[in-house]
C-alpha cells in the first residue's frame, strides 16, 4: 500500500513539475510576438534570436547575460527569443535555461512561416541565427551573426545615454 502511495505521489509530482515547467515559458506565433519589436517608449530593447542547439548563439549568451546584468538599473529590457522546436521545449530548452542559469527573459517564437516574418524583423536578415535587434523608439540596429560583449555594450550604452 505504502509502495503504491509512493509511486502515485511521485507520478503526481513529476506531472506537476512538468506542468510548472511548461507554463514557465511563453510560446508565441509571430503575430503575438511582433509588438515586442516595436515598443514605443524610452526603454532600450535588445531582442536576440537564438536556439539552444545553435553553437554561435550559445557562445554569445554569456556576453548578453553580462549586458543584461550591467543595465538592470536602467531603462533596459532584454528578450532572448528561442527558435527551438516546440517539441524540444521541455526536453531541451528548459533544462538548458536551468543549467546555464539564464536570467534574461526567454520567450519561444514558434511560427513556421518564416518566409513571411523574417522580413518583418529586418529585411537584411537572411534567416541565419544568431541575429540581434537593438532598438529604442524609432532608433534601430540589426545584426546577423554573433556579437561580442564590446559591440553590444557600445550599441546599448549609446541608446541608453541618448
Amino acid at each position, binding site marked *: 500500500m505504502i509502495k503504491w502511495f509512493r509511486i502515485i505521489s511521485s507520478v503526481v509530482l513529476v506531472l506537476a513539475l512538468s506542468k510548472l515547467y511548461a507554463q514557465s515559458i511563453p510560446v508565441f506565433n509571430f503575430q503575438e510576438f511582433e509588438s515586442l519589436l516595436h515598443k514605443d517608449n524610452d526603454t532600450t530593447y535588445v531582442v536576440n534570436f537564438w*536556439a539552444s*542547439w*545553435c*553553437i*554561435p548563439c550559445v557562445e554569445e549568451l554569456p556576453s548578453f547575460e553580462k549586458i543584461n546584468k550591467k543595465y538592470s538599473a536602467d531603462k533596459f529590457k532584454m528578450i532572448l527569443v528561442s*527558435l527551438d*522546436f*516546440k*517539441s*524540444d521545449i521541455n526536453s531541451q530548452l528548459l533544462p538548458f535555461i536551468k543549467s546555464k542559469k539564464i536570467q534574461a527573459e526567454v520567450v519561444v517564437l*514558434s511560427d*513556421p*512561416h*518564416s*518566409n513571411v516574418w*523574417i*522580413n518583418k524583423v529586418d529585411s537584411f*536578415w*537572411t*534567416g*541565419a*541565427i*544568431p541575429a540581434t535587434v537593438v532598438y529604442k523608439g524609432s532608433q534601430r540596429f540589426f*545584426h*546577423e*551573426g*554573433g*556579437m*561580442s560583449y*564590446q*559591440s553590444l555594450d*557600445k550599441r546599448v550604452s549609446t541608446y541608453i545615454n541618448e
Partner: protein
Amino acid sequence: MMKKIILFLAFVLSVQFSMAQAYKVGDKASDFRLKNVDGQWVSMADYPEAKGFIIVFTCNHCPYSRAYETRINNIAVRYKPLGYQLIAINPNDSTIVAADSYSKMQLRAKARSFHFPYLLDDHQRYAKIYGATRTPQVFLLQKQEGGLIVRYTGAIDDNYEDPMEVSQRFLQAALNALIHGKQAVPNTTKAIGCSIKYAGASQKKTP
C-alpha cells in the same frame, strides 16, 4: 589629387569585394569539384544529361537540416528522372563543428540512405561563391547555353517543423514551373537556419 581619387576608388572596390554577395535569381552559378561521401570527386559537369541542379547547402548537426533530410531525399528521387539532379554540400568547417566532419558525413549519408551526392566544401570556397549563409539553403539551377542560371533560391517549403503542416512547397513549385517552361513564383524565399560559420570570420566584429 589624382592619388586621392585612386585611393578612394581602391577603397570603394575593396569594400565591394569584401562584401560577399549571394547569388540572386538570374545569376550565373559556378560549377564546383568537391569530394563525395563515397570518395569520388563530383562536379556538375559530370552530369551532361541533366537539365539542371538542386544545390542544397546542408549539414549533419543542424536541427533544421535534419528536419529536412527525408524531404530532400524524396525530392532527389522524384526529380532526378525529370532531369534535375540534387547535390547536397556541407559548408561547415569541422574544426568549428566536429559533428560536420567528413567521416560523420559518411555515417549520416549511410544511416539516412541519401539518394544524392553529399559533398564536403571543407575550405568553404563554394559556400562563399554562392553566398550561402545558413543551412539548409537551396539554389535551383537550370542549364542554359550560357551556363547554369539560378532560377530559385531559399527555402524548401514553409514549415520546417512539421512536414504534414506544409502549405507551400516552394522548391517543388519552382521545379515544376521550370519543367513546364515557366518562371518560379516566388523565386526567392527566406527561412530560419543554422548560420554557416566561416573560418576566420569571428575576428570581424561589428562596430
